[in-house]
Structure formats: structure tokens, C-alpha cells
């Protein structure tokens, strides 16, 4: 058995540098001669730029140049990577997204000009001296108001704030309406999925470098997908061919989606470095991050569930308004559509589903994927409406779910919303949850709380997600302007050690450890013999990066494919050296043996022969032992799980305390249980943050009220308990070689409805049945107001 192979909780090798201060994050990169950029951002939500006077600022010490939109006249805008076609067959409205605001500002934080100076302080000081006159225009923040006739237009030239009006499955619309007309019971719920800010602890940073002698650009950036940035920025914005543009995303301090997108600042520093023939660095402050990183969620939804007289779900109908913000961020259009509408079957056999999504432009920061992306929104509304239905019908919410679950013998299961679930066992995860959360003992605990004057509640939620995005031909039909394969190059070195170049990117997920475990398992070597390289377009194959819990399912599959090519070639070399047929060669524990004999060659015998091919079948094979593979998945993967939350509500103040949180997940096979548990725990804290604390709030004029950690409540160590995390339920994915499903987003998807369901349960048990819903975040004041309504 290889040490640290698949299934081992191998300690992370990357920790050594992070624990000693030797990590190399983008802001740690300083290039000799670098200048500093500072952006001047709009402080109004909507306005016409009347004039920009840079004369005084330009004369200030250290100022190299001040850039405005005029400097970018010959440059493309920031592209959108997904085109959604609406219910009527029309393409979505796609407004221009200039690098620097051109003519109009459209949200607080929209960059208007940028000062580049010798020092950061000089750039900031000079920015104060730039005089910008803006004629403020009425802003629109509320989505429904934005769709009213006469609303201010975010983009005058496209004539509407409605980006698209999407229906899915449009052909089912009438059938769904009929099912509702026939239903024995209909449950309706209006809810908000609150706008969030991803807030990875490392703010965004970009450093542009330019070597004039060979026309070579390098961009160091805090990105989850450096190859995608190279493609988007090179081809669509700045017109730099790939071989003249290198993008490096070194150690990245968390992403959660917000570092997928191509941002204006990346294009700016790359462009300015060439103009000034100087490296140019920009480091976001946290305040800037709040108004320039893409936000997440922000859906307003009416969800309706139809049931027959036996409490079987017969139809589901969803009407959602999804906020796009002021511009289309890179993948924004696909989040409320294909990553949301296709998940509305959840874990249930609901035969008819229709969803209508209206995507709306407003004078707010652009909204895009945030941990879970579309799937948390789908899960939240579904698991809330099912819970509400159970309460209206007077049945146990767990039993209502169980009754309607897809049964284990029904897989593969074709849902009415296009996707086919390959495997799952929702009854098993639900049972597991009830067991480890001691559901049976809840009544006694509730009585104990009551004796202390507190209201205890238990909430469950069951989620499904679609990970491992995605089959390229399918997403191409759905409007993606990219493929969604992944790549790996496995380079076996002459003396047997292995260097892997992956197109995936790690920004906390621990790929350097887990990817090495996969190779070690396959070759039968020690994981310490395997090094993982990622994050630099100069030395990794074209890859799509890390998001959507895809790294192991897609990137890991590419790695398996490349390693299998290595093993096949190595077996041929061994067959030659052992004078046997390749089919008779077995690889075990790093040794090649002729089956049924004791004739063998070591791993190093083979790798040396590959690079010193003195005795080698040169007529049939090339020397060397290096293989690249691209893997394009044939389906999504479908992790699922049952989550349970136990809360106590203080009836005096409305304060909610989470007493325990239990997650019972099915992630298929697992490479490193320690890392998987860590991913779930982190996701849970984010989901609990959404449910109880976090909210990006705007006032009516478009001012961001929550622009710093002073006003935006991030979960802190004492806001969360220890979590119980279980992944013993396992139905391996049937269509990728590792049988893995993905675990990065589950925690953030399943936890918000479990928390809200628990609070509603606590109030109902205390007789406050008038409270059927409270919008997130469930702050003490909101809970108190609901209790006392």
C-alpha cells in the first residue's frame, strides 16, 4: 500500500509554508521598479461624468500618469462568458462593460480614473487632487422598481433593465399550471435570498509586468483560474495573444467564487505596465473589495408547491427576480438560470417544474457566483417551501421529505429539469442525520430549554447539488462561451520522481496534497515523490480552474487519465526490458512484474530506461515519460446530504443561538477525509453566516450601507459551534474514474434552510404559528419583530 494514498487523512504539505509566513501571495510579490495604482471610484450610484480634471494631480510628486476612459478607447470591454437565451428565443441584453467608466457611472465603486505613482501614498494623495464632476442621476436599486415603466435605465443604450426573461422548462408551463389547478393543496412562499459579499480574507491584488524587448506581458493576480483570465483578457480586452501573456495566480487566500471573474483592475495593470514601461501594482483595500468584488445571491422569489391528497408533490413553480447589478460579471447570467433552474427537483420526484427568472440590472455592484452559485438559492426555496407545506398539512417535515424522495432503486433518475442524477441515496443520508444528531432525544432537550425560558427548535434540510461542471458540449448549447474540461500533465522524471502540472487551482483546497495522493495510489509510490504545480499559465496546460466543486471530479479525472497513459507506456517499456507481452505486465507497489513469474523491474528501472533509452523499443515508442490528458465530463456529479440544525431562540430578545449543527453528506468516494471535513465545516460557517448575520445592504439612493467589516457581520469564532460532520453514506459517482462527487460548496448550500427551518420550528413549538417565514439574515430584531407581529 502506498503511504498517503487515496483515503488517507494525509496532513497538508502546503501548511508548512503557510504556518511559517513563507506563503507567496500576490501582494507579497514586488517587482523592482514597480509603480502603484490607485483607483478613483464613484461615490454615487448613478450619474453622468461631466468632467475629469487631472491637471493639478498630474503635477503632484511621484505621479507617473492618470488614466481615464479616454485612454482605453482602443481597448475592448470586459467580456461576459455566458449568453442566456430568453423564453422568447431572444439573446439576453448585454451592455458594454468598460475598464474605466465611460460617460456614466453605474454603481458606487465603479472605477472612473486611476492614478499611477512612484509610491502607494503618492498615488493616493494625488487621487485626492483629481477633480471629477458628476451629474447625479436617479438610481434604481430595487429589482421590481427597475422593471417598472419610467424607471431610471442603468444602461440607456439597451433600453431596458431586463437582461433576460428566462423560462424553464418553457414547454411545461401549461402542464404545471394545470397541475396547480388540480392540486389538493398548494403552499406558497415569498422569500429573499440575501445579497452577500464573498470576502475571502485575502483582498484582490494585481501586478502587471511588461518586458519591452520581447513584448511579453505578465500578470500576477489573485485568481481561481489563471488560464481563463489569460484567454478573456488577452483575446477580448487587450488583444494580447496567449504566447505573449503569462498569468500567474500564486498562493491565493480564498476565493469562494469572487476570484473567478475577470476584473477591470487586472486589465488595467496589464495595460498600464506597457504604457509606462514599468511594473504596476494594485492592492485592494477591504473597503474597495466591498464595492468592487462581485457580490453573490440576491434573488427575490415566489415559490409554490402543489401536492395531491396523499401529500405527494405534483408540481413546483418558481418565479425569481435575480439581481445582475450594474454590469454583467463574467458568469453572472448562468447562475440564476442553468445553475439554479436545473436543481429545482431537489431530492424529490416532483414530476412537473416550471421556473421563470427575470434578471435585472440595478445600480449596484455586479452579482455573480458565490460558494454554491444558484444551487443554494434553489435549495433554500425548495427546503423552505417543503417545510412550510409540512406545517400547513400537519405532517412531520422529515416524513414529508422521505415520502417524496427519489428512491434508491430509481437511479439513474431523469428529472423534469433536464439533468440526470447518476446515483444517490437520500433515505440513507436522512437516516444518518437523525441518528447522529440524536433527533429522538430532541423532545427532552426542548423541555430542558423551556425550563430555562428558551425556545428550542430543530430544522432539517436535504440538498442536492450539481458539481464537476461540466460537459462542454452541453454547456455550449446552454450558452457557455467556454469549454469546461480540465487538464493535467504528468511528468515522470528520469530518477522516478513525478511532477504534475494541473489546470486546476488551489486557493485553500489542498490540491498539492490530495492530487499527490491520487498519483501515489495509482503508481504505488510514496506521495512525497509527487509534486503538484498549479497556478501559472507558463508551466501548466490550458485548464479551466477551480470553482463549482470541480477540482477532483474534473481535474482529478484528468490526472487519472494522464497517469493511466503513463502506466500504459511504462508497462510497454517494462515488457521490452522483461521480454514479455505488455498485457502480462502488472504494476503493484511501484514494481512491474510479469504475471505469474518473479521477473520484475522497479519503477526507477523503467523511468531511467525512458530517459536513457539504450535498451528501448525506439522503433515503436518515443523516449521520455510525460503525458498530458484533458478530461471532459459526461455528466455533472450529484453530491447530496441531510443537514440538521438545533437552535435556541431567546424570546426576550429574538437572539438565535446555534446549539448544534450536523451534516450527513454523500460525496461518493473520498480521497482525503480530513480535507473533506474541513471543506464542509467552512461551508457551514458561511451558510450560517448567510442565515443569521450577513447581508449586503443598499439604501434607496444606491449607497452601500455595509461597506466594511464594521457593518457587514462576518461569522466569528464564537458565532458557531463545533460541527458534527459525517460522510459515511457513499454512492460513488458512476461516470468519473475516481467515483468522486465534490464537497466544496455543500456546507454553504444545505445550511441556510436548516437554520431557518430550526428557528421557525422553535417558534411554532412555542405556539407562534403565525410566523411562517423570516427573511435572512435572522437578526435578533427580525426574529423579535416576527414573534411580536
Amino acid at each position: 500500500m502506498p503511504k498517503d494514498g487515496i483515503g488517507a487523512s494525509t496532513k497538508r504539505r502546503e501548511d508548512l509554508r503557510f504556518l511559517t509566513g513563507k506563503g507567496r501571495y500576490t501582494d507579497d510579490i514586488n517587482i523592482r521598479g514597480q509603480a502603484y495604482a490607485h483607483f478613483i471610484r464613484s461615490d454615487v450610484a448613478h450619474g453622468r461624468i461631466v468632467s475629469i480634471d487631472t491637471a493639478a494631480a498630474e503635477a503632484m510628486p511621484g505621479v507617473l500618469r492618470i488614466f481615464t476612459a479616454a485612454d482605453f478607447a482602443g481597448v475592448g470591454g470586459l467580456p461576459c462568458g455566458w449568453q442566456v437565451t430568453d423564453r422568447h428565443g431572444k439573446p439576453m441584453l448585454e451592455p458594454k462593460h468598460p475598464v474605466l467608466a465611460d460617460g456614466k457611472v453605474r454603481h458606487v465603486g465603479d472605477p472612473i480614473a486611476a492614478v499611477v505613482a512612484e509610491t502607494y501614498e503618492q498615488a493616493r494623495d494625488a487621487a485626492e487632487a483629481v477633480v471629477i464632476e458628476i451629474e447625479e442621476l436617479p438610481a434604481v436599486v430595487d429589482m421590481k422598481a427597475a422593471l417598472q415603466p419610467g424607471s431610471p435605465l442603468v444602461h440607456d443604450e439597451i433600453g431596458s433593465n431586463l437582461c433576460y426573461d428566462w423560462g424553464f422548462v418553457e414547454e411545461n408551463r401549461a402542464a404545471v399550471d394545470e397541475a396547480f389547478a388540480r392540486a389538493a393543496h398548494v403552499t406558497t412562499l415569498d422569500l429573499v435570498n440575501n445579497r452577500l459579499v464573498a470576502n475571502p480574507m485575502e483582498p484582490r491584488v494585481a501586478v502587471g509586468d511588461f518586458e519591452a524587448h520581447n513584448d511579453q506581458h505578465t500578470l500576477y493576480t489573485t485568481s481561481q483560474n489563471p488560464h481563463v483570465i489569460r484567454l478573456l483578457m488577452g483575446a477580448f480586452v487587450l488583444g494580447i495573444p496567449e504566447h505573449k501573456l503569462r498569468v500567474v495566480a500564486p498562493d491565493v487566500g480564498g476565493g469562494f467564487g469572487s476570484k473567478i471573474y475577470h476584473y477591470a483592475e487586472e486589465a488595467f495593470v496589464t495595460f498600464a505596465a506597457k504604457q509606462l514601461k514599468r511594473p504596476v501594482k494594485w492592492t485592494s483595500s477591504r473597503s474597495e473589495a466591498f464595492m468592487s468584488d462581485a457580490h453573490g445571491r440576491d434573488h427575490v422569489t415566489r415559490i409554490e408547491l402543489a401536492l395531491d391528497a396523499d401529500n405527494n408533490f405534483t408540481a413546483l413553480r418558481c418565479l425569481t427576480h435575480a439581481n445582475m447589478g450594474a454590469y454583467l460579471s463574467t458568469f453572472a447570467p448562468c447562475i440564476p438560470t442553468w445553475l439554479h433552474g436545473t436543481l429545482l427537483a431537489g431530492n424529490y420526484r416532483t414530476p412537473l417544474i416550471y421556473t421563470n427568472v427575470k434578471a435585472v440590472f440595478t445600480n449596484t455592484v455586479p452579482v455573480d457566483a458565490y460558494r454554491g452559485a444558484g444551487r443554494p438559492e434553489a435549495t433554500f426555496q425548495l427546503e423552505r417551501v417543503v417545510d412550510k407545506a409540512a406545517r400547513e398539512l400537519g405532517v412531520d417535515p422529515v416524513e414529508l421529505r422521505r415520502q417524496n424522495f427519489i428512491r434508491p432503486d430509481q437511479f439513474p433518475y431523469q428529472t423534469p429539469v433536464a439533468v440526470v442524477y447518476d446515483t444517490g441515496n437520500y433515505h440513507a443520508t436522512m437516516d444518518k442525520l437523525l441518528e447522529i444528531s440524536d433527533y429522538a432525544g430532541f423532545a427532552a432537550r426542548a423541555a430542558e430549554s423551556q425550563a430555562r425560558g428558551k425556545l428550542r427548535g430543530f430544522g432539517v434540510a436535504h440538498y442536492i447539488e450539481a458539481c464537476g461542471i461540466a460537459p462542454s458540449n452541453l454547456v455550449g448549447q446552454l450558452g457557455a462561451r467556454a469549454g469546461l474540461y480540465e487538464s493535467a500533465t504528468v511528468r515522470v522524471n528520469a530518477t522516478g520522481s513525478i511532477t504534475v502540472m494541473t489546470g486546476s487551482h488551489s486557493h485553500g483546497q489542498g490540491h498539492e496534497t490530495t492530487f499527490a495522493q491520487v498519483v501515489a495510489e495509482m503508481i504505488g509510490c510514496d506521495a512525497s515523490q509527487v509534486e503538484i504545480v498549479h497556478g501559472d499559465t507558463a508551466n501548466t496546460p490550458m485548464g479551466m480552474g477551480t470553482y463549482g466543486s470541480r477540482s477532483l471530479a474534473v481535474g482529478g479525472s484528468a490526472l487519472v487519465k494522464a497517469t493511466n497513459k503513463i502506466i500504459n507506456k511504462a508497462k510497454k517499456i517494462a515488457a521490452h526490458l522483461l521480454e514479455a507481452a505488455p498485457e502480462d505486465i502488472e504494476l503493484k507497489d511501484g514494481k512491474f512484474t510479469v504475471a505469474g513469474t518473479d521477473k520484475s523491474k522497479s519503477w526507477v528501472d523503467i523511468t531511467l530506461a525512458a530517459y536513457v533509452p539504450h535498451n528501448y523499443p525506439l522503433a515503436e515508442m518515443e523516449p521520455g515519460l510525460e503525458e498530458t490528458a484533458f478530461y471532459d465530463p459526461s455528466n455533472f456529479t450529484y453530491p447530496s446530504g441531510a443537514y440538521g440544525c438545533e437552535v435556541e431562540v431567546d424570546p426576550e430578545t429574538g437572539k438565535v443561538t446555534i446549539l448544534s449543527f450536523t451534516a450527513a453528506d454523500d460525496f461518493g468516494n473520498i480521497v482525503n477525509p480530513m480535507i473533506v471535513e474541513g471543506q464542509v465545516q467552512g461551508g457551514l460557517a458561511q451558510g450560517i453566516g448567510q442565515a443569521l448575520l450577513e447581508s449586503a445592504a443598499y439604501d434607496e439612493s444606491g449607497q452601500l450601507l455595509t461597506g466594511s467589516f464594521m457593518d457587514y457581520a462576518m461569522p466569528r469564532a464564537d458565532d458557531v459551534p463545533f460541527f458534527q460532520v459525517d460522510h459515511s453514506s457513499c454512492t460513488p459517482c458512476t461516470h468519473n474514474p475516481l467515483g468522486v462527487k465534490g464537497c466544496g460548496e455543500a456546507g454553504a448550500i444545505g445550511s441556510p434552510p436548516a437554520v431557518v427551518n430550526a428557528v421557525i420550528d422553535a417558534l411554532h413549538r412555542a405556539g407562534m404559528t403565525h410566523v411562517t417565514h423570516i427573511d435572512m439574515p435572522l437578526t435578533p430584531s427580525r426574529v423579535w419583530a416576527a414573534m411580536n407581529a
Partner: protein
Amino acid sequence: MTKVSMVVNGKTVSGEVEGRTLLVQFLRDGLGLTGTHVGCDTSQCGACTVHVDGQAVKSCTVFALDVAGAQVRTIEGMANPDGSLSTLQQAFQDHHGLQCGFCTPGMVMASAALLAENPTPTEAEVRHHLEGNLCRCTGYHNIVKAVLAASGQDVSAPLAAE
């Protein structure tokens, strides 16, 4: 520009700073000690935590000139003299108390200060003490576990709430 000297990780260092230069800027830009991170501009996140004369301090909240002559310790000075990880650092690795690593230097410095003051803290004390340090990756579970383990407490049984 004013000259400032202090002892950082046992070595006397000096440099030219402006009055407004923050300690964190002096450490990162002046001394190249980039292990100390900046995660916010409102003194909320703790990524910049260092020790000044043995006390945990957010180095974004003090000017470099204010700590002239002081003993400063950063994450780069936390390993054992032979370069191996200290008990606390090792506990963070053993219990997976870090993911992206960005909050980690601050977490280690804040936790070390807690353990110096309170060698066997309870779970609640650890959570309360780390309130000023944000982590977006771990959900704090394994950070709290690592600190309890570093204090010599048994964390082998599954930890559950209550």
C-alpha cells in the same frame, strides 16, 4: 522620513519611515516579512496580528514609530530554533486548522498570546479570544481544535456542541 529601530524576531532592525507608516507596512515592505497579512482597513480581521513586547497587537493599528525600541515577534519568528514547527504550529497542521493560509499567521499569533496567558483555555475561552480574528475558510472548527490540542487537551474524541 524618520529613522526607527526595533527588535524583530530577535534581530535589531532599523529603517526610514513616514509618520503615517503602519507597523504592518514596515514589516512587510520595509523588512520583507510578508508573513504578516493585511485583510482589512478597519482593524477587524486580525490577519496582521503580531506580538509587541509579548502582547498580541494588530499591526495595522499602530504606527511603526510607536513601537520604536520594542520587541516584535512575527510569524516568521514562531518556529523552533532548529526550524521545526512549534507545538502550536504543529497542532494547526495536525488538526487542519488552515486552508488558504491567509488568516493563519494572525491566528497563530493570537492563539500563542492566549496560551501564554491561559495555558489550558476552555473551548469558549478560545472562541472568545479569537473573536478579533476572521477566517473565511475553516468555520473555526479546526482552529479551535488545534488551539485546544496545543494546550495539551485531548481532542481525539469527536467534538460536539454543548
